[in-house]
């Protein structure tokens, strides 16, 4: 078998996940030796059309044009990977879905002439197409990215386990930010895989990897209000951030429609 043809596509996003794919300098040239990057606009001038073996899709769908592009990507790629939290759940741009303004009101806040602006609510790509693999995180975790590439080369399933960030915090023997420091940490409901990066640096988990497999958002919302002293609106903001579109996180918001 020849080298698999790999493509990187960008929808509405910051390019941080694509850049993470380049941020593997010590082994970048090795990776380029085993895959054939045939489409990567940010890195190359000569980009070739499909079909591709693996398509990494970064970013969320925010416009009809992107939706058409996404459907074409699905047709052209044997394997589609949602690369990063925007592609997985909608990410930061999805906050506009919950800000209590209509699409037109959102547009009018930023632009004066709206006739040529076509935007829609923001969702992850599996709202529209079938997705084969997910790389979560804002941005993606480099090691997970490499594990996925290696697994696909070997034809095996990557073993990603989305238990909560708490598990990784305990392995690192971190002091619990929620219980001991009274910080509004989302670690107990958020999927691990980041090595409890933020809590290990004294920063509360913000939930960028989306819901853990055993997510109990209602319970954490109660703790946030009773023990940490957050208002209902503050709790809603916590859950309506990176993955507010997911049913798991929206349970944490309760009856609060927006903050």
């Amino acid at each position, binding site marked *: 078998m020849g080298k698999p043809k790999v493509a990187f596509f960008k929808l509405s996003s910051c*390019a941080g996940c694509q850049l993470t794919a380049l941020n593997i300098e010590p082994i970048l040239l090795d990776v380029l030796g085993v895959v054939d990057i045939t489409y990567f606009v940010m*890195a190359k001038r000569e980009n070739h059309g499909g079909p591709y073996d693996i398509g990494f899709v970064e970013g969320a769908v925010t416009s009809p044009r992107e939706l058409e592009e996404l459907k074409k990507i699905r047709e052209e790629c044997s394997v589609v990977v949602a690369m990063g939290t925007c592609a997985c759940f909608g990410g930061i741009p999805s906050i506009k879905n919950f800000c209590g303004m209509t699409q037109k009101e959102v547009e009018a806040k930023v632009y004066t002439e709206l006739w040529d602006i076509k935007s829609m609510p923001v969702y992850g790509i599996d709202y529209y197409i079938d997705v084969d693999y997910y790389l979560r995180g804002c941005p993606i975790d480099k090691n997970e990215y490499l594990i996925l590439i290696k697994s696909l080369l070997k034809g095996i399933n990557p073993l990603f386990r989305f238990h909560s960030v708490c598990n990784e915090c305990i392995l690192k023997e971190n002091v619990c930010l929620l219980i001991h420091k009274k910080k509004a940490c989302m670690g107990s409901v958020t999927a691990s895989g980041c090595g409890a990066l933020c809590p290990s640096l004294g920063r509360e988990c913000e939930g960028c990897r989306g819901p853990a497999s055993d997510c109990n958002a209602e319970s954490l919302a109660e703790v946030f209000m009773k023990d940490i002293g957050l208002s209902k609106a503050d709790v809603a903001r916590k859950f309506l951030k990176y993955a507010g579109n997911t049913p798991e996180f929206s349970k944490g918001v309760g009856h609060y429609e927006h903050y």
Partner: protein
Amino acid sequence: MSTTRNIRVDYIARTEGDGAFDVLIDSNGIVKKASWNVWEPPRFFEAFLIGRKAEEIPEFVQRICGICPHSHHIASLRAIERAMDVKVSNQTVLLRELLHYSDWIMSHSLHIYYLAAPDFLGYESVIAMAGNSDLLPIVENALKIKRLGNDMIVVLSGQEIQNKTSVIGGFTSVPSVTDLRKLQDQLKKMKEFAYDTVKLTNTLASQSPYKDLSRRCEHVALQDVGKYAINEGRLVSTMGLDVPEWDYPKYMIEKHVPECNCKHSIIKDRDSFLVGPLARVNLNFNTLSIDAQKAAKEIGFTTPCYNPFMSIVARSIELVHAIDASIALIDEIGTPVFERPRFSYKAGKSFAATEAPRGTCCHGGQIDKYGVVKKWDIVAPTARNVYNLNKDFEEFIPKLLDLSDEDLTLKCEVMIRNYDPCQSCATHSLKVRLQRE
């Protein structure tokens, strides 16, 4: 006889994000239209930030851009801290400077070697450059210097792309002195390569036709007292602008242009302007590190330089400076001590600016007494440069009409890449469409 030629390029490669450009040239060789069209809808940061809490703003706005997150992050932090009257320690100021210089080292080396150099050397990408055994050592060093920028960011903020430790009032954790010293050793080792980069980029930008193309326009940058401005300063220009950074909304005016999601920027009562490395080097040459100045003088770089193709050289000069400045900052920081970041909400309004790798990055807004954001304004450097880029096209394309369509398209792309555009920042989309009547 009139000739009609249509050239269409769907994406401009090797820029961050993707966009469209329409060029229409009539049979007399006059550029009828040169406009940067942005099709893709923006992500409406300025809208959805309303109603969020002050401490969330720096976390969110760094996600505008994966290449210059810290420029947005630090500008918004400083605007909020000024609005809420939060004082930070000198150590925090120094760590933020080091963090931002790390971003410069990463972004500048990414641009010079990954994005721009293939243009000048006739390759389609840095990957293709690595296939040439003569160029492989340069590519390997390029990977190393970019890695160094990344390593610095990891030490300071936990991860390469989005910052995890920097918050209102300071840092949730500080790096160890051992890690900082290790970085300092690496910086000292990479300096020679940065120095050589200045010479290399000068050779590339001195090729024909680039060397003869220059266009006088207003250059704008922050200017600090006694040091090269990166995180704060006054806004100054080559045409006499000299105002506090928080007054930027009064002097840098934005207007919405039909058919473009990206607003165009002008200086009040004047015209388009340029921000970025070339403007900074022109305006702040005397505060560059001694070796950066020396490198510039050795290649005969004189200020003011109005040739936009020399931007890559200005970027290389800044790469030397960023390394020198980082080495000095690590000495000045010494052994960092953990200081708990503290702040309380206070109603206020303020604006601030930083120098992103690609130019002046402005943030600011209004916060109520509960810390809820009422209004937020973001102007990324690429948005500042769009209008100026259009003027470059109008000036330079008539001089390049003898070139084949293929070559002219490439030269247009180079003109765009001069600005190191970050189209996620400016909202997306860049397509070259060249039409000749």
